[in-house]
């Protein structure tokens, strides 16, 4: 039987086809899309994250969970009534620093879009200058950085230094998240916010951009 709890389990067990099918069933049954997203998809992802923290899952499981979520999210996005979601006139430059990982970043991108932000996704393997250049060209309001491997941590520091050097640090709040990061590290490096989970990105963006 299709239930939100069952969807959460399918996402947690990284079964993309079955999860997408169940998402469609739940939507057809008239359940709230936001409830399906948060209690089904997001909580399923959190379960995988918890197992990863306990060394019961690996990065590949996180990737597979991301693929599973990606199979469900477009269905949920389409189910939001036209014009219901509030759109803010705020642009966010989002990308992965240095490495080719993209699942967490893609999830943040989706949630920010659902949350009403215009996301300029610059993809993976970015340098600090890529973030700066895109923000300047697009007139962005915030920069969001995914840091997944240790060498990228140093590059994040370089980004903060670069923004200071170019005298635009105050112009762009910078938030960061990713497997190797921590709140203490983010604060030490001068980030304006750190997200433990993908959904934290939306909360941080709202907070830093003054959206109630």
């Amino acid at each position, binding site marked *: 039987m299709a239930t939100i709890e069952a969807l959460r389990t399918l996402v947690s067990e990284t079964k993309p086809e079955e999860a997408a099918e169940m998402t469609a069933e739940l939507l057809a049954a008239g359940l709230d899309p936001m409830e399906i997203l948060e209690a089904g998809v997001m909580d399923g992802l959190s379960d995988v994250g918890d197992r990863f923290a306990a060394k019961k899952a*690996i990065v590949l499981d996180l990737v597979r969970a991301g693929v599973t979520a990606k199979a469900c999210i477009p269905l949920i996005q389409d189910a939001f009534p036209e014009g219901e979601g509030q759109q803010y006139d705020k642009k966010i430059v989002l990308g992965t620093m240095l490495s080719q990982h993209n699942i967490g970043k893609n999830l943040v991108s989706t949630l920010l879009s659902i949350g009403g932000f215009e996301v300029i996704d610059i993809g993976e393997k970015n340098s600090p200058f890529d973030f700066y250049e895109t923000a300047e060209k697009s007139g962005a309001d915030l920069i969001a950085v995914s840091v997944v491997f240790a060498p990228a941590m140093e590059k994040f520091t370089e980004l903060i230094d670069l923004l200071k050097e170019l005298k635009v640090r105050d112009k762009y709040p910078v938030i960061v998240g990713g497997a190797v990061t921590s709140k203490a590290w983010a604060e030490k490096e001068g980030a304006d916010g750190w997200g433990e989970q993908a959904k934290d990105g939306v909360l941080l963006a709202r907070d830093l951009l003054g959206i109630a």
Partner: protein
Amino acid sequence: MGRLFWEVIQRSTTGPIMSEEEFETERLPSVLASVQAKYKIEADPDEPIMADPDMADAVFKAGMELLLELGLYCQDTKRVIHFTEEEIKEAIATARHEVVLGQGRDEMRLSPRAPGDTKHPYSWSPAGAMTTNIDTYRTHALTVVQEPACDGVIPIPLFGVNDTKVVAETPAHTLVCLTEARIMNDVAGWAGRPGLFFGIPMSATTPITLMSTFDSGLYNKHNCTLPVQILMDMRVNFDRFNLVFFAEQQGLEPWMSCSPTLYAYLTGPEQGAIEIIAQSLGMLAYSGGALTQAMSVSVHGVYSGNDISWCNSAAALAAERNLQLPWLSIGSTVDPGGPMSDGAWYGTALSIINACISGMEATWLSGGSTGLEARWAGEISRAAAGLSPSEGIEVIKKILTAERAPAPPSTKIDKLYDLKTLRPIPEFVDHYKKFTRIFKEWGLEYPSWDE
């Protein structure tokens, strides 16, 4: 270089085409899981060391099968390089089992040692500091090279040369590495140890920087080796082959190295150990090297824990029983507490005792970046050399449950040493003496300055 070197290059252009994503997310995990299950390799999470000879042999067989089944992935051509069992067996049969590093009084002959061998693993401690300040870097290195129990050093990567910061893949990068080499030669000469071994050029990360640094002669076949290591998770590229050929042309000892990251694509220490064996055999086939460094790290960013030490010991024992290559692993747990912390000193002892009872020939990055920590690493290496595996595990379990005082705030070199005399300050010596006392109480007897 390896007998298969030219053949491997050809195969990198003719092997089966595969996307890197398929190789890393589908082929690698499925073959690894299959060989792990076939040979029933399971770690006990409560055991910090793997000392079972039968399981070590199983790890070796699984590693061999992983290489034969999976092959190596060439990033430049997107093709898989496969080997036959006969080819790998021939590479093993013709492998060198001894290397000579350093010169004169500091010459080291790394030849096979079994677990419990009274011959100690050589201890190579980090020299320098993570800084752009050349004076600070030199001072750290001086404190280390003056220690007689330090058998060789591993330069810490320089971040720049005073105001000139590293800019990767530019002459600034080469300048920094040349400066590292110059300082290593200077401090070794100052300590009366011109034949000291310097490990690998640690400030270099690109082939051109490595080659340029060796071209200077500051690093050479007597005092340094050339990294030809495989890339993470069974991958190679043309840079690896160019470095192997350069090593051959210059008469340099290749530095074979593998550092699997647990919990990325590997489910745990068992798969880490299997992959180390597979990668070592692959490197052996194409590079013809002998000296092999193998240490695991967790994707969670730590170098300590039962999973890490289990993986390192399992791979080392598997190699000792089936390859007998000169083998080394990390001689510390990279504890963030710093030179005055208990965690760092216990971590060094744990890693080195692991090396002793797993049949390793050396440890690298042993201790911390100060001379007294290098002394500790070298002395523990000598003290633990004769321990049987069960005796060593007993000491390691004591280390794991020992009480640790809170780590003091990070302490700089000028607060640990009298920089005029290069002698450690009394508080630092007391810290050292505390640990020599603890380990003597635990049954380790060794010559130290704690008299």
